[in-house]
């Protein structure tokens, strides 16, 4: 009887002093977000798709059975006779006799490259502008507001231009190439990142903990770097993931329009799609395969991005 009651007593005492363990380290917001991310099936699907995509595009080109530009059935291909799926060529041949499977794998690398570089350009330039504007607006004062105003009006100008038109103009100046596509797609996403980071930074600048840091006597630049920027990054990171998806689609669209790489030896999914449209009634797989590739990759990035948005949303935390 006494043993039982002592046990009970220990139990409440344990409850009263819940979690008084020295060894356990605290869980930061990032760690917690990652935990939530791992529990989300959408995130897992997205991550698996992207993982495969990245592996294929990095390792794939070294393992492909044929060179992507090698014309296997040279001279024998006619309109109306394009060899389909068979043992040697898993996805068949294309309209001039190149191995479609090898082209898809090598094209994945191009697609990933364009998406990543374009997003990086947008992220870097946009964050720089947005960060400076946000910090200037947060610091306040006449100069701060002026800097913020000038930068944001510039961003508004970029935003006012239709993205396709902007890309065509850049291509017109630089000539059609993969670089053009990267720059064009990147430029289009600059305003998104700039506005996002600036908005988040201004919101954070008005928060109580920034006021608390000021009242502690912490210098303003340190407050901006140590508090405002880290707390504003979450939406930017989410946006970057989502932008990767749109960048891939936009890059494909530009290549489709012939603004991209015109070197036929380096395949790219958008360009493959453009080439295939003439043969869509005889060999629809030539169009369907790159289209599927684009859709699945974009979907993977979008799924992961949305899952990250959910995981990082402070409102959804308990």
């Amino acid at each position, binding site marked *: 009887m006494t043993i039982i009651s002592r046990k009970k007593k220990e139990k409440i005492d344990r409850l009263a002093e*819940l*979690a008084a363990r020295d060894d356990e380290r605290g869980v930061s917001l990032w760690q917690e977000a990652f935990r939530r991310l791992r529990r989300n099936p959408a995130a897992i699907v997205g991550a698996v798709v992207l993982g495969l995509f990245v592996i294929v595009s990095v390792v794939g080109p070294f393992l492909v059975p044929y060179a992507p530009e090698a014309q296997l059935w040279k001279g024998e291909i006619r309109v109306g006779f394009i060899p389909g799926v068979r043992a040697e060529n898993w996805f068949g041949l294309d309209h001039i006799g190149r191995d479609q499977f090898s082209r898809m794998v090598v094209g994945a690398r191009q697609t990933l490259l364009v998406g990543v570089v374009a997003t990086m350009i947008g992220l870097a330039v946009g964050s720089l502008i947005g960060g400076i504007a946000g910090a200037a607006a947060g610091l306040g004062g006449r100069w701060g507001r002026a800097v913020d105003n000038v930068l944001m009006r510039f961003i508004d100008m970029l935003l006012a231009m239709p993205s396709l038109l902007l890309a065509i103009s850049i291509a017109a100046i630089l000539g059609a190439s993969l670089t053009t596509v990267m720059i064009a797609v990147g430029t289009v996403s600059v305003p998104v990142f700039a506005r996002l980071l600036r908005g988040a930074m201004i919101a954070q600048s008005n928060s109580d903990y920034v006021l608390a840091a000021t009242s502690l006597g912490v210098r303003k630049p340190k407050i901006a770097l140590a508090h405002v920027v880290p707390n504003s990054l979450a939406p930017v990171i989410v946006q970057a993931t989502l932008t990767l998806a749109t960048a891939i689609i936009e890059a494909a669209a530009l290549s489709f329009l012939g603004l991209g790489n015109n070197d036929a030896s380096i395949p790219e999914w958008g360009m493959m799609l453009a080439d295939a449209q003439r043969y869509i009634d005889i060999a629809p797989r030539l169009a369907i395969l790159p289209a599927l590739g684009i859709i699945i990759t974009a979907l993977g990035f979008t799924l992961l991005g949305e899952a990250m948005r959910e995981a990082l949303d402070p*409102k959804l935390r308990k």
Partner: protein
Amino acid sequence: MALLEVEDISVTFARRGQRAVHAVDGVSFSVDAGEVVGLVGESGCGKSVTSLAIMGLLPKQPGLRVGGKAVFDGTDLLQLDDRSRRDIRGRDIAMIFQDPLSSLNPVIPIGLQVTEVLTRHRGMKGDVAAKEAAALLDRVGIPDPKRRLKEYPHQLSGGMRQRALIAMAVACQPRLLIADEPTTALDVTIQAQILELLKDLVRDSGTALVMITHDLGVVAGMCETINVLYGGRVVETARRRPLFREPRHPYTVGLLGSVPRLDAGRGERLNPIPGSVRDLLPWQEGCAFAPRCTRRVDACVGEPPELVLAHDGRSYRCVNPAPLPGLARAADAPVPAKSEPAATADGTGQAAEAGTDVPAAGKPASGPVPAPREEEKP
């Protein structure tokens, strides 16, 4: 026969991959016709969830389980289908929420929102409805009611919005009014206005009122019967005077000792309850308040304490209740001194106070209270 008889209501939120949260764990209370009943407790005690469950307003989500009975005038509200429940809601039972701005539709003028209630439940139309709406606004003390009818919620101050909401609630002369923290968002002087208005309305119309609040001062001024909730259960029920004069449950004692009183002298230390509201023991394993209780004995843990029925309709759920502060003395001095209930805390309060409100690591808090309103924008 009571107007509303709530029996053993329980609300459980089960989330995927997490332990189920018992937001309400067997709440019972009753409301007589025309009576003002208080539900008092701190955040997470289940007072709001109880009212939402009775009204059928809990957001429908997988994993939500509502059990028990809520018999209103012979019908069990929990068994009704959505449609008949909607009919009862507004006509026989009305509800007032804490945040009037999010309870009113921002793009529809006040007048239209009031007349819609009249049209739906009382079949009024056109000018008749408009006239009645103006009369209602006048009744709840909104100046210049005819002009206010055309205005939008954002054009009114917080106090006026709450009055407009009350006008909508009493539009159909309901028999029961449930007010969920109706004055928490308001300033004290406005709170006094609204409480006075509610008292008047209840007195004049004979409507029964369930007042849900965390403020002991508010219930002291207006409720006839008070239910104190802790951890999703009613731990003490008593008429107003006995509750404040002779609180029996240690939690009630603790609450009364925690509130600084306007009429107390400067320099008196408060007697806080140690720990935090998150330190709950599940009711199946004993008294939920045991981890914070200064009167805890061995019998508190193991099985949930039985409800003890005392005289005068009073009941409490405690195996070691606070002693009555001397029956003879209570007769001599009708107003007990401020520190008296807290004196039973036998000094352990001070020692245990520091740092005992530890985080509930890995344990879900006793429940975010879902309110039937949109999430506020950051």
